């Protein structure tokens, strides 16, 4: 399988009233064709803006300070705005978290669904309409003809999210970026949507970048996992490896914090403290202030990435496996 998307050393900065803030540091990962990569991490760790920078849709005050985003070998960052626009919704699509606000309230579902088809495929209004109905059927909406004439507010959250997915998939993109597509939805609806994305992916061979903070969603959908903490990747690997043998203390903490629905009831192991502020200058590992294993080196020097069978970890404890073996979480 080939890498369809490669992100290399991506650094994202924001200009703010307090000065320039670095929100994402040296982010690198890649996505293979047909693969689902999940990006997890706590709120504010930089998942969304990383995704937006792939789309070329960073907020006005944000910019990519450094790095490359290679899509099929071409650097998206070098594209002209109009070339980039033609990629969006066509080769790369995105589904956003909030189904309630992500649709334009004053246009019909039909209008919004036809739009990408007309822009990228040059469909006539009629053709786009027919295709739109077909798409709505595909995402499992009842009465698709009628839905085309309805406005977003007349649909429930789950239905809207399905419309968003239909819109994103309209032009058979190679990559679908889904930014917390189910966070705002109920579990039963969430299950429907996740199944839908999975089905679509299988049918169309699309690669999926799924952003979430729900470890359950990751476990159910991902092939590979990228764990982010405070603007950095701290761990990356196959979903099984990461879940069964987490290496980074943060990943471990995260997994231990999730209350389980089945199996034995155990005391939750919370990670103390909270995510550092963006502007905070941190010397050493960004996780050190919350890390139960923090060592002196962690406080003075940022850890490098250690790789082991495609499983990457950014932690000093990997420096000579021996140390890691000796320290067992409490």
């Amino acid at each position: 399988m080939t890498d369809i998307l490669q992100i290399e050393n991506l650094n994202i900065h924001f200009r703010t009233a307090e000065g320039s803030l670095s929100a994402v540091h040296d982010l690198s990962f890649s996505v293979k064709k047909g693969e689902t990569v999940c990006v997890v991490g706590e709120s504010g760790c930089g998942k969304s803006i990383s995704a937006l920078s792939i789309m070329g849709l960073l907020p006005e005050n944000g910019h990519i300070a450094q790095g490359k985003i290679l899509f099929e070998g071409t650097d998206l960052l070098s594209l002209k705005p109009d070339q980039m626009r033609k990629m969006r919704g066509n080769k790369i699509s995105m589904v956003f978290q909030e189904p309630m606000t992500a649709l334009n309230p004053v246009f019909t579902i039909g209008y919004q669904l036809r739009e990408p088809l007309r822009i990228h495929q040059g469909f006539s209004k009629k053709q786009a309409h027919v295709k739109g109905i077909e798409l709505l059927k595909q995402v499992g909406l009842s009465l698709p003809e009628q839905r085309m004439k309805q406005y977003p507010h007349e649909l429930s959250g789950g239905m809207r999210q399905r419309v968003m997915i239909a819109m994103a998939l309209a032009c058979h993109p190679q990559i679908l970026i889904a930014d917390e597509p189910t966070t705002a939805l109920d579990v039963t609806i969430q299950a429907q949507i996740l199944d839908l994305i999975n089905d679509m992916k299988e049918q169309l061979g699309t690669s999926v970048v799924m952003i979430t903070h729900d470890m359950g969603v990751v476990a159910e959908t991902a092939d590979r996992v990228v764990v982010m903490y405070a603007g950095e990747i701290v761990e990356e690997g196959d979903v099984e490896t990461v879940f069964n043998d987490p290496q980074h203390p943060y990943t471990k903490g995260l997994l231990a914090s999730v209350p389980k629905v089945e199996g034995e009831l155990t005391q939750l192991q919370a990670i103390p403290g909270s995510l550092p502020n963006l502007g905070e200058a941190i010397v050493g590992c960004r996780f050190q202030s919350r890390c139960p294993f923090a060592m002196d080196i962690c406080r003075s020097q940022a850890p490098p990435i250690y790789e082991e069978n495609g499983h990457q970890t950014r932690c000093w404890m990997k420096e000579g496996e021996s140390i890691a073996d000796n320290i067992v979480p409490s």
Partner: protein
Amino acid sequence: MSALIIRRFIQMIFLLIGISFIVFISMHLAPGDPASIIGGPTATKADILGIRQRLGLDQPILVQYWNYLVGLLHGDFGVSFQTQRSVAAELFTRLPNTINLAIASVIVSVIIGIPAGIISALKQNSWLDVFSTTLSLGGISIPNFWLGAMLILVFAVHFQWLPVGGLDAPFWTLQGFKEMILPAITLGTGSAAMIARMGRSSMLEIIHSDFVRTARAKGVKERVVIWVHCLRNAMIPVITVIGLNFGFLLGGTIITEQVFAINGIGRLMIESIGSRDFPMVQGAVLLVAAIFVFVNLVVDIVYALIDPRINYD
């Protein structure tokens, strides 16, 4: 929608009765006697008594109001104390001028205000934004009558491009168009500025909303994003301002009509108050209030057309 219209209509009737009562009572209680004004300083006591009887002012005030109200409910606005013409006829001679003026200035304000608002939102914090903001705030800051007088001096007296005042020709003729320009600008500047500022802030809000990001994510052209996806949403609060402004414009016409010698409701109102022409004041106020309510009804309907989320039932 029809429920809205019917409800508003019922509300309007009560509103108008309320207003008529307030105006009636306050006019009657206010010092100043219509008879002594008609009589003028030369009138003797007997003269004035005669006039009072002729006008029916010798009856108890509530009886007068009742008679007025009964007439009103039969569609009779009464007869002017001063000119002895039917109030309705007098009002409808002037109404077109005022309406034309108000509409022209709404057009002026929209033509200036909306692009200015959009441009300064798109180029937020640029010099263009500062310039447009300064200009629009300047527009709000100039007293109406002063602006009018200045415009007359420059464009009518100095360059003689446009007539000084008066609305004589029908508005669809060239002459009529020329006559309308200065008053419409005078009256429209203030609300143009308000629209520009409202447009700017609502555009800014919309530009940063999720669905605009969605549109961009679909690959929609920037131009279409702005003019199709943003504008319609941004118009919703702007329309409120236009609607409310229409009310203020109706008030503002008083000064504009004065300065530009336009025979409109505003001027009629001020004349009639001056001469304590009660039926005329009543009629004019009721008419203006009714127009205001009507315009706001239209605004509500336009809302519903622009924003499908709004449902009045």
